[in-house]
């Protein structure tokens, strides 16, 4: 016979303590296979690392304006510079884009979970562990040009591990869009963010292994022979292409579709010319990924004589031969981004957007981030024009910072827009809106002076070799201030987000009267996302389910329990 002791003291004794509960919560986060949690971990860690990148950018600026040589140890500058480059690409841009896509894309395509959830978790931990090794080795005088050989090896191993994690994570996102879409949601009907995540993640999964290959070869050579790849000094020479444009353009691609998706939803209107938008995303992805294979390609400085008919034909052929590769690999990506940003603008303008929507933080983060990203694409193409002679100058650094920080702005926009879905509470718009200005100012100030200094031939990857007293000193100081502003933007945004997502106004399930599946479920969604399997009959499936379509009054509270699968 079984007896049950119902005395309260006996129950209290079996109840887990607060410490046990916290440990159990931590264990649940560490071993989670919920894509929303993994995505949030990616985003959270990368925002924290972004604070470090901002500090490093500021320190580099300080080195460059200091007239009396080095503030820090002269050898440390190389490590700081490597941290800035690696940090922008591997700690900020890639994990932010992949993390946001991981959290949102399965919801957008109406999937119960991400494809291969355990692989997604493995991707996160592999990236985090690899990033930890990179930071540890660079801090201990390892990394490119580092003085401690074992830490140089550790750095290279960390890069390979981080790449493996990011490729695995990107592959799970691409596989999710390709295989777990809800019935009726064809690829043509997939929301733009999911589409750009698919295209961008495939591009990342094809680009990063080439960087891993170069890194593995450099690692083996450094471990055993040191005969081929220049030892510690050759690390950046062989792997540096993966840390600057055009590779950075590829890393930014998954967030490109977030611009039209979020703005059209906020404006409560359907996107214009969806097929053209998809072409724009595809064009930017294919041409940017192709440009990675052609990093040595420039628009040559050849004079073309058109004086006689024979000369004219020959010159025309040479002119076309010279310009076509540059147009394909340098200029075509700009067209792709221009299409996305331009058509988003057209969607906003017809009819004119209300001031409330226009001046919301999510809209502004997306608009300004998109415009700056497009400028980054364009300036990369300008850098490939050989006669301007920008190679080896700080120009390349300026473009990478512009692209990297634009992605941060777009990510903050995406967090402002999709945060209510992931956390169930809205971000306070009045507190977030000033951060748009701060972030835009920081991005422009950190990058544009570097671009101007590139035209003034300030050498790249160096704190010396130029006049620190004249205008260059002012421009370097402005760049340093830009990094500080960006640091403040991200720091303040994290604070605002923490306050809003814990104590802010409840968002409800469908705060924007959304058009896509993620707004159909509860906020935050349950572990398996949807209680009832959604079905799509168009590219705006949730609108189709609403009796009054887009003309419905803003739904600040939950949708029907039948849709959310939740009882209140």
């Amino acid at each position, binding site marked *: 016979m079984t007896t049950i002791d119902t005395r309260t003291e006996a129950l209290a004794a079996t109840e887990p303590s607060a410490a046990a509960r916290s440990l159990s919560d931590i264990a649940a986060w560490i071993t989670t296979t919920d894509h929303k949690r993994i995505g949030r971990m990616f985003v959270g860690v990368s925002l924290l690392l972004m604070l470090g990148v901002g500090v490093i950018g500021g320190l580099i600026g300080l080195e460059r304006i200091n007239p009396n040589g080095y503030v820090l140890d002269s050898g440390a500058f190389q490590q700081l510079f490597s941290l800035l480059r690696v940090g922008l690409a591997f700690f900020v841009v890639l994990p932010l884009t992949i993390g946001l896509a991981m959290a949102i894309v399965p919801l957008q395509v109406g999937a119960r979970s991400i494809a291969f959830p355990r692989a997604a978790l493995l991707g996160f931990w592999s990236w985090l562990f690899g990033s930890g090794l990179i930071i540890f080795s660079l801090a201990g005088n390892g990394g490119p040009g580092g003085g401690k050989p074992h830490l140089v090896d550790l750095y290279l191993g960390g890069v390979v591990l981080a790449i493996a994690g990011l490729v695995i994570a990107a*592959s799970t996102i691409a596989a999710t869009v390709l295989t777990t879409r809800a019935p009726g949601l064809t690829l043509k009907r997939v929301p733009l963010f999911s589409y750009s995540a698919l295209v961008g993640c495939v591009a990342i999964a094809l680009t990063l292994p080439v960087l891993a290959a170069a890194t593995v070869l450099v690692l083996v050579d450094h471990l055993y022979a040191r005969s081929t790849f220049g030892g510690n000094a050759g690390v950046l020479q062989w792997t540096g292409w993966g840390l600057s444009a055009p590779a950075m353009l590829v890393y930014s691609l998954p967030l490109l579709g977030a611009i039209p998706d979020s703005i059209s939803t906020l404006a409560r209107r359907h996107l214009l010319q969806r097929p053209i938008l998809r072409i724009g995303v595809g064009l930017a992805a294919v041409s940017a990924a192709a440009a990675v294979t052609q990093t040595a390609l420039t628009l040559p400085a050849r004079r073309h004589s058109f004086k006689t008919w024979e000369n004219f034909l020959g010159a025309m052929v040479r002119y076309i031969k010279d310009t076509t590769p540059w147009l394909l690999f340098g200029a075509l990506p700009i067209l792709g981004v221009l299409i996305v940003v331009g058509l988003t603008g057209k969607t906003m303008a017809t009819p004119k957007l209300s001031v409330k929507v226009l001046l919301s933080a999510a809209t502004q983060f997306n608009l300004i981030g998109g415009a700056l990203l497009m400028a980054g694409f364009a300036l990369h193409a300008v850098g490939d024009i050989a006669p301007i002679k920008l190679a080896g100058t700080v120009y390349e650094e300026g473009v990478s910072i512009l692209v990297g920080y634009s992605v941060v702005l777009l990510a903050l926009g995406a967090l402002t827009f999709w945060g209510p879905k992931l956390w169930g509470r809205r971000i306070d718009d009045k507190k977030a809106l000033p951060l748009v200005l701060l972030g835009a100012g920081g991005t422009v100030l950190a990058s544009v002076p570097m671009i101007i200094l590139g035209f003034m031939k300030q050498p790249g990857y160096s704190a010396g070799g130029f006049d620190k007293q004249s205008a260059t000193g002012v421009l370097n100081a402005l760049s340093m201030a830009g990094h500080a502003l960006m640091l403040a933007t991200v720091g303040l945004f994290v604070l605002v987000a923490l306050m809003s997502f814990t104590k802010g106004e409840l968002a409800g399930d469908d705060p924007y009267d959304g058009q896509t599946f993620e707004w159909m479920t*509860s906020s935050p969604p349950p572990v398996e996302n949807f*209680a009832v399997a959604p079905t799509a009959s168009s590219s705006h499936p949730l609108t189709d389910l609403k009796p009054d379509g887009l003309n419905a009054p803003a739904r600040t509270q939950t949708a029907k329990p039948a849709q959310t699968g939740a009882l209140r």
Partner: protein
Amino acid sequence: MIALPAAPAPAPKRQLFVGTALISAAIAMFFGGMLAIFLKLRDASPLAPNVTKRPSHVWLPKGVEIPQVPSNIMLITLAFACVLITGAIVSAKQDNHTSTALMLFLCAIMAIATINAQALVYKRMAMSLRGGTYEVLFYTITGAFLVCLIGALAYSLTTAFRYLGGRTKDHDVLISLATYWYVITAVFTVIWFVIYVTK
């Protein structure tokens, strides 16, 4: 708020096949990058054939010869593994369980045979990894391929035991495994041509 019990999720559409295809494409790009560096360094070598007009093997370290027979056997073995895995898919579609399991185990044996042939190549070449450029490139590229082969071996054995365990209707796993075998065979064909034939 009480969540209702979840309804059964719709079956994903060929998820394992798509995942395998993506990872296989990444593997192909990985080896593409390594071989591109191999070709670049070979062309830049002062002993490169296009510089000296001499046969290409002159950039090999002194006294080192690539054994042709085991490297050719490796290619043939991998091609045979592709035939076997295709046969396994055909047998599975015809519900011939014995034949399917046999072919999967034979695929695993082909992987072991290829690893064995690679070990023979290493033994006969007897190069030190610390020797120089060629040694680093050779061992890194072929070593990375060995890792892929071990992956193929594990994948084949897992699929075979799943099949023996009664999961005979899961053709997607077989097709995914075949995709992986096809891709690594294509990768080895390029490695064979670049490293073992044109050296």
